[in-house]
């Protein structure tokens, strides 16, 4: 393990720049969002998570997949793989889990070449959470507040210095690029990090019982909570747009002259038009769609992916819901009724 003075974080990230596009949490006014590194706006001491997860660097909101040109004789196709070498710093443990989960979806049985191209060129530099926000419940899912896997480097904020754990050879190579900025950590700092982890776990205001949820969810399809909460839904799709694991998309062809672009967009299972390409959305009632969102994450995903759930515990879906629909509340109802 290494130590990096906080003051040396920006210089370290800057040093990676010639080779990598560096992405980090930045202050945009009073909001914290991931963006291309601007050292003057770099956010290091924030509580909770950047407002959107870094998912979009691997699976963008809007991505041009390929362009095609239908000529009388032939069809020309040009694929647009994004192979930018990228380092993302400040990835919270919930978001590391989110990307680990997307790897299961997009790189295991079915391989998505666009995701694959981006993923192969991306290094993840995690940042443990010393304090939870109101909506966070990763400690209940054991996806945080300190990460155990799925990072290339992992940073823990010890006050004036970061403790830096190496998670891969690629991560180690990054440290080599800034070797003179790092010191060797001692057992004292490792102990301090352990204490911080215990302390952080006590800051959670939201908790759920995952064991109970897994045991009860199959029998919860008639729980009144679906209808009670769904009646408030205004169909904004926000819960899907901000989810670090939601992976559904739609494609559209945009034709201008002879040239057609195929564009992929994030899609939302909460909308009536979802899966319309298969004639119609088989879940006609909003309550069924809300139930599907939760079942997908807590029942179907674990069945398919060896027990891994499709929720990171980040609580972003709750944060952005204009109807006040709270995922932790729903999960508690599932567990307790």
């Amino acid at each position, binding site marked *: 393990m290494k130590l990096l003075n906080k003051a040396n974080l920006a210089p370290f990230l800057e040093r990676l720049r010639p080779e990598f596009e560096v992405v980090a949490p930045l202050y945009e006014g009073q909001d914290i969002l991931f963006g291309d590194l601007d050292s003057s706006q770099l956010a290091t001491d924030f509580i909770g998570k950047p407002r959107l997860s870094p998912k979009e660097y691997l699976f963008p909101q809007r991505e041009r997949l390929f362009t095609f040109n239908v000529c009388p004789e032939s069809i020309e196709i040009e694929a647009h793989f994004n192979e930018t070498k990228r380092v993302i710093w400040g990835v919270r443990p919930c978001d590391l889990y989110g990307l680990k989960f997307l790897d299961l979806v997009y790189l295991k049985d079915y391989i998505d070449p666009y995701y694959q191209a981006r993923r192969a060129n991306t290094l993840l530099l995690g940042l443990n959470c010393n304090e939870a926000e109101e909506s966070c419940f990763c400690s209940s899912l054991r996806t945080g507040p300190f990460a155990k896997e799925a990072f290339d480097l992992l940073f823990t904020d010890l006050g004036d210095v970061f403790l830096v754990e190496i998670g891969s050879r690629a991560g180690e190579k990054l440290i080599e690029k800034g070797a003179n900025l790092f010191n060797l950590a001692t057992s004292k700092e490792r102990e301090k990090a352990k204490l911080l982890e215990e302390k952080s776990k006590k800051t959670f205001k939201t908790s759920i019982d995952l064991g109970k949820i897994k045991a009860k969810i199959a029998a919860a399809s008639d729980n009144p909570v679906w209808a009670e909460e769904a009646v408030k839904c205004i169909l904004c799709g926000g819960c899907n747009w901000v989810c670090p694991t939601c992976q559904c998309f739609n494609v559209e062809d*945009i034709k201008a002259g002879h040239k057609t672009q195929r564009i992929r*967009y994030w899609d939302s299972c909460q909308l009536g038009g979802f899966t319309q390409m298969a004639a119609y959305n088989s879940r006609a009632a909003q309550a069924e769609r809300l139930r599907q969102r939760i079942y997908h994450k807590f029942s179907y995903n674990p069945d398919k992916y060896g027990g891994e759930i499709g929720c990171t515990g980040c609580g972003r879906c709750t944060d952005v819901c*204009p109807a006040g629909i709270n995922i932790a509340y729903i999960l508690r109802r599932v567990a307790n009724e």
Partner: protein
Amino acid sequence: MKKVLTTCEFCGCGCNFYLGVEGGEIVAVYPSFSHPISQGRLCIKGWQGHEYIHSPERLIAPLIRKGNRFREASWNEAYQLIVDKFNQTRTRYGNDSVAVLSSAKCTNEENYLIQKFARACLGTNNVDHCARLCHASTVIGLATTFGSGAMTNSINEIEGADVILIIGSNTTEQHPLIGDRVLRAITKGAKVIVADPRQTQVAKLSSLYLMHKPGSDVALLNGMMNVIIAEGLEDKEFIAERTEGFEELKKTVASYTPERSAEITGVPEESIIEAARIYAGSKKSIIVYSMGITQHTTGVDNVMSCANLAMLTGNVGGEFNGVDPLRGQNNVQGACDMGALPNVFPGYQAVTDEKMRNKFEKAWGVRGLGVNLPSQSGLTVVEMLDSALEGKVKAMYIMGENPMVSDPDLNHVEEALKTLDFLVVQDIFLTETAFLADVVLPGVSFAEKDGTFTSTERRIQRIRKAINPLGDSKPDWKIVSELSSRLGYPMDYKSPREIMDEIARLTPIYGGISYQRLENFGLQWPCPTPAHPGTPFLHKGSFSRGLGKFSPASYKTPAELPDVDYPFILTTGRISFHFHTGTMTRKDWALDREYPKGYAEVNSEDAKELGLRNGQTAKVISRRGEISLPIRSTEAIRKGVVFIPFHFAEAAANKLTAANLDPVAKIPEYKVCAVRLELAL
């Protein structure tokens, strides 16, 4: 990726988000989490409604009509043709033979310029915009009773109310982030009363729902006031100290006993009594209303009755009480503030007031050109079209409006526009209206220009340029300035910021506004001086007009009632996935996928009696036209009422509606006309 903070281009909530820009294209949206209204939340239009910006259908060059087609032209040629035609028309028929429609989608700066263009350059007060079709009755009704025609509260104050009376507003669908505040208030224990002929989402979440007959609002509100006075629940101190005209109100509402009110409205007596008691039972009662109140021949009466009810119980002038008309368009409040209305200069300063004319003549330097500003109020939207048919209006300039879908009685609109000698349309798409034009000028979307929008809570906020104008298109303020200059009235603005500085100098309620001061999520007017912090709620201590004026109204029936031939009431409105005439939202895959076409909502019992099954195509016929569209049968609409959203040009609800106007506000009665339904074969 560059992130540009800006204000949403759809409804009047005024949410802020960042547009993510890559390679000159909008590729992402991020809600602003620190913005007072958005707070990290958006509706689907905010998240996913901006694809139209890059639509291949965008206009990217001026077009000139050539027979039944258009050809691309240079700006120079297009401008010259407009200059020649406008000059000929004005010389031959006078200045008032030209009429201008402004746009609630455009910025304050653009609205300011186009009314200045109409008045100072063309010499006519014939300038109006779609506020005429949505809140003209509010502007007049609240100005009469309170002295100011705007939402009295801030959006966030709704969350702190104990009682929210929602009448004629489909809040969660049409103003989603205001709906968010209503839902939060419910969570905190507020009682919500909803009066609407349709059982909307917010009605389903309410504690008391009144399914009243379309057009019976005055009778319902008078009934509530009757109960309040009969039970001694009125605020005597407030009435004595802050209002006038109470005795007349008392006299008028005396005859609206719960029994009579129930008979007119179709709402049970006990519900009217309960609503009155709940509303009068708190000093934190807010009335929220929208088109269900305003779009009637009795629109002004409806608005004044809401104001009467608030004053009767002392529920106005406070932080958590008031009367809140929800403005529909992103900048319809601003377009009114800027004087894109036929009777007022910016800041509601009357054109008939000589002092005001002097002020603007001096400021606009028209005297040097030997011209006086016109002293008579000009024509309103519907009157312009009527005058075109009468041959009095010969040429029109329409910026960012689509009357061929949005105005009542479309066959009449089409006839009127075709009668014109010359029509110019400035828009981002070849809309149904642009299709009839002689010259089409390509403006830009909100993402391609700087400026300000004023939201429904009077919050003046920045929009910021994220990408360059597409093709040869130009920011709308630039088009108006260039055209004005060529017509002999020079407008030489370097930027919208400079225009705002001029607005602030001439508009007392915007006196303290500057771009610099708007950086932190804007300011709420009135903001008269550079040191003024803005005004979150109106009428504190005293009303804008001094004493609040009770303005009693008697119930009048809608202009066109159902009869044997046309037995149903048609009411029109919007759905959450589309906006107005759909020129933007129907080009967005996600929004279009939800509702690719129109429909008619029919009560399930009515459907059964007519032998119509859910999804079957019906013909809906009025005295003015007919359309065919699938029906959706539902219990969530009053028996005898049919609802059709007006977004869909190919099944345009406005082919059916009538141009019956409120006598004062001249707003058409979109919410009531008579139709019949038949199975389409």
